[in-house]
C-alpha cells in the first residue's frame, strides 16, 4: 500500500520535474535575451550631490507622514539601490507606504582626487551635511538614522560624536563592532603580511575588483552553486527576478577612497579601535557609550560577512536606555532585501519605528 503511494509520489515528482525542465528552456531563453529588471524605480529627487556623496529624497506616498524623517546611510562598498530593488521588492517603497518621509545617502565611485577622503570627511562633513539638508527640508530637528553594514559603522561614529544631537532613533543592520572577530578578513589583513600602505600609495583608490574578490573569497564555491541554483529555478519567474536584482547589485561593488580604506584596515581591523574606544576622529574619541538615542541592532543569523561574534557586543556597549538587538533568520543581504526581508526586517523596523517617530 505504502509502496504504491510512494511510486505515485515518485511519478508525480518526476512529472513536476519534467514540466520544470520545459519551463527552464523557455525561462533560460528569456533570461539570455532580456535585460535585467529595472532598479531604483521609486520616485525620488537628488537633493545633494558632492563628489562621492549623493542624497536622495523619496516622494512621500501617504497623505500624512510621521513627524520624524528617516535618513538611510548606505554601506560605502555598494550602491544604495539595494533599498529600492524593484517595485514590490523595495524597502524604501515599503517605508513610504507605511507613512515615513525617507532620505537615502548613496555613494558614487570616488574619483582619483577623492583618494584623500577619510573618516573625518564622512563623519564630520558628509553625514552632517545630509542631516542638515533633511532638517531643512522636513522642518524637523529630530531624525532617525538607519545604517547598513559599514553604513551602520559610520552612523554609530556620527551619532557618538554628535550627542546630544539630532539623532532621535538609530537603527543599524549587520554592523561590525568587535573587528577582531571578523575571521578570514582578520587573517587577510594581518599587518605582518598585508601592506595596506603599498596598496593605497600605488593605486590611490582601492579598486572594486579587490573589494569584490575579498567578499567572493569568503564563499568561494557559492558563485558556482548559485549558477546551478539559478538554472534549477529558472522556471520560477519570481526567483529569477529576485536573483537578477540581487546578483547585479552584489557585483556592482564600489572602489573605496584610499585613505578611508587605510583607516578601516589600520584603525578598525588591525587596531579594533571602535571597540576599545581609542578611535579618534577630528581629534575627538568615538565612544559608543555616548549614544543615547533609541537604538535597534538587527543582525542576521547566517551572516557570512559580519559574523555574530563581530556585532554581538554592540547593544551592550551603546549608552541608550531604550535599546534592542534582534537576531533574524537570513544572511548579510537577505536580511535587508528579498522575500526574507519582506517578512522579517521590514515589518520589525516599521513596528519599532512607528512608536518612536511621532
Amino acid at each position: 500500500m505504502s509502496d504504491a503511494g510512494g511510486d505515485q509520489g515518485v511519478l508525480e515528482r518526476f512529472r513536476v520535474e519534467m514540466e520544470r525542465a520545459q519551463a527552464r528552456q523557455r525561462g533560460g531563453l528569456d533570461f539570455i535575451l532580456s535585460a535585467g529588471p529595472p532598479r531604483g524605480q521609486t520616485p525620488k529627487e537628488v537633493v545633494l550631490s558632492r563628489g562621492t556623496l549623493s542624497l536622495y529624497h523619496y516622494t512621500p506616498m501617504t497623505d500624512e507622514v510621521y513627524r520624524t524623517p528617516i535618513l538611510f546611510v548606505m554601506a560605502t562598498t555598494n550602491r544604495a539601490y539595494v533599498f529600492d530593488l524593484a517595485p514590490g521588492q523595495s524597502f524604501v517603497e515599503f517605508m513610504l507606504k507605511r507613512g515615513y518621509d525617507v532620505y537615502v545617502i548613496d555613494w558614487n565611485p570616488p574619483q582619483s582626487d577623492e583618494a584623500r577622503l577619510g573618516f573625518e570627511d564622512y563623519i564630520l562633513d558628509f553625514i552632517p551635511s545630509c542631516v542638515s539638508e533633511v532638517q531643512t527640508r522636513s522642518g524637523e530637528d529630530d531624525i532617525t538614522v538607519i545604517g547598513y553594514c559599514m553604513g551602520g559603522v559610520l552612523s554609530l561614529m556620527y551619532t557618538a560624536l554628535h550627542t546630544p544631537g539630532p539623532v532621535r532613533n538609530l537603527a543599524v543592520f549587520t554592523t561590525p563592532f568587535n573587528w577582531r572577530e571578523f575571521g578570514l578578513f582578520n587573517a587577510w589583513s594581518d599587518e605582518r603580511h598585508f601592506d595596506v600602505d603599498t596598496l593605497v600609495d600605488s593605486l590611490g583608490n582601492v579598486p572594486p575588483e579587490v573589494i569584490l574578490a575579498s567578499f567572493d573569497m569568503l564563499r568561494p564555491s557559492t558563485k558556482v552553486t548559485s549558477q546551478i541554483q539559478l538554472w534549477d529555478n529558472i522556471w520560477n519567474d519570481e526567483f529569477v527576478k529576485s536573483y537578477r536584482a540581487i546578483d547585479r547589485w552584489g557585483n556592482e561593488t564600489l572602489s573605496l577612497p584610499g585613505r578611508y580604506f587605510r583607516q578601516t584596515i589600520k584603525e578598525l581591523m588591525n587596531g579594533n579601535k571602535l571597540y576599545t574606544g581609542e578611535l579618534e576622529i577630528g581629534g575627538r574619541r568615538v565612544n559608543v557609550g555616548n549614544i543615547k538615542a533609541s537604538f535597534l541592532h538587527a543582525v542576521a543569523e547566517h551572516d557570512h560577512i559580519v559574523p555574530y561574534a563581530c556585532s554581538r557586543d554592540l547593544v551592550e556597549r551603546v549608552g541608550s536606555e531604550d535599546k534592542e538587538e534582534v537576531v533574524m533568520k537570513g544572511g548579510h543581504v537577505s536580511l535587508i532585501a528579498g522575500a526574507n526581508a519582506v517578512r522579517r526586517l521590514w515589518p520589525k523596523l516599521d513596528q519599532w519605528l512607528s512608536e518612536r517617530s511621532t
Partner: protein
Amino acid sequence: MAATLDLFGAWRDALQKWEKETNAALNSATGDERVTRAMSQSLSVMAQLQAKQAEAMEKGLARVNLPSKADFRALNTRLDGIERQLTRLSDMVKSLAKAEGVTLVAPSIPRPARTRKAPAGSAKPAKDGSK
C-alpha cells in the same frame, strides 16, 4: 519510500553539502598564514605594476600633448573647490531662510502633514530572537 527515491531532492541536498564543504575547505586554505602571505605579496606586486603602468601612460600622453590623469585631477580639484563654496553659500542661505521662517523646498515635492500616529495594532513581523 518516496523520500528514498527522490533523486531530484537528493541531488539538491548533495549540491548544498558540496557547497558547504568546499567553502569550508577553501576557507581553511585561504586562512593559512602561508597562503595569506602569498596573496598579500601578489596584491602588492599587482598594485605596484599598475602604478608603473599609469606612470608610463602619463609620460606617453605628455609626449603627444594630451591631458593626463593628473591634469584632470587638478581640474577636478578646482571644481571640487567651487562645489564646496557653493555648498557653503547654500548652507548660509538655508540658515538665513530658517531664521526668517522661509521654506526653501521646491513646490513640486508634496509636503504631507507630519501628524501620522502609530497604528494601535500594527502587523507583527515573523518571530526572531531579541535581547
